[in-house]
């Protein structure tokens, strides 16, 4: 499974989201051998680039071409709790086990 954090420039905020996702997976003791997390800019976020895309909600229109069921819109990028809820939803959907804190 591939998760991409996306932002306008692919530099700063997307990496913050990537760090949060990775920290959450680690804290929940998820086997990440088949999970890749990366970050990129909106221009590189094509439907086949990843299984799930995390993006700040005001940029939603910039990723309008991505399938909506694979796009997670974040209200507050640095809010780990919000990101965690979405990560857990994806893990549930994919049948990947994790340790809820």
């Amino acid at each position: 499974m591939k998760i991409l954090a996306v932002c306008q420039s692919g530099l700063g905020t997307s990496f913050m989201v990537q760090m949060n996702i990775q920290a959450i997976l680690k804290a929940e003791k998820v086997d990440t051998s088949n999970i890749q997390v990366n970050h990129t800019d909106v221009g590189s976020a094509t439907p086949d680039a990843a299984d799930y895309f995390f993006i700040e909600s005001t940029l939603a229109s910039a990723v309008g071409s991505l399938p909506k069921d694979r796009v997670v819109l974040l209200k507050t990028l640095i809010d780990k709790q919000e990101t965690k809820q979405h990560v857990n939803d994806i893990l549930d959907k994919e049948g990947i086990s994790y340790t809820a804190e």
Partner: protein
Amino acid sequence: MLDLLNAQTLQVADGSNLSWEEAITIAAQPLVDTNIIDPAYVDSIISVVKEKGPYMNIGPQIVLAHARPDSSVHGVGLSLLKTNSAVDFVDAKHPVKLWFVLTATDSQSHLGVIQQLMTLLTDKVAVQKVLEALSVGQILTILQKLDS
């Protein structure tokens, strides 16, 4: 930790009479003064926000102003302006007191800075203290305590 934020790159201002463009320009001034960026970088940030909206409002009252690396950037840099009054970032739904400016020369060089910055930003207690700080000295004290 966060050694890029120091007495030179931290500023505290009243803010009540500032526009968001002015807040970002003031926040970036120490990086212009030390030749880490040319003023054109600040113009790039402002144009991106005008074009794409307030997505750089990454958390409550926090903006991480940045643009793509280009010829106006000469190094990795970080600066912070804290305004005692909130300034509307683009619109009234995005009031901001912490104005970070981040510069990067490529897609890798600044990742360490972001990691350090996240240590601060994910610490809600520390962020609240910075929001309440009224002087550069107070902010430095808060940042130094993050180290220990």
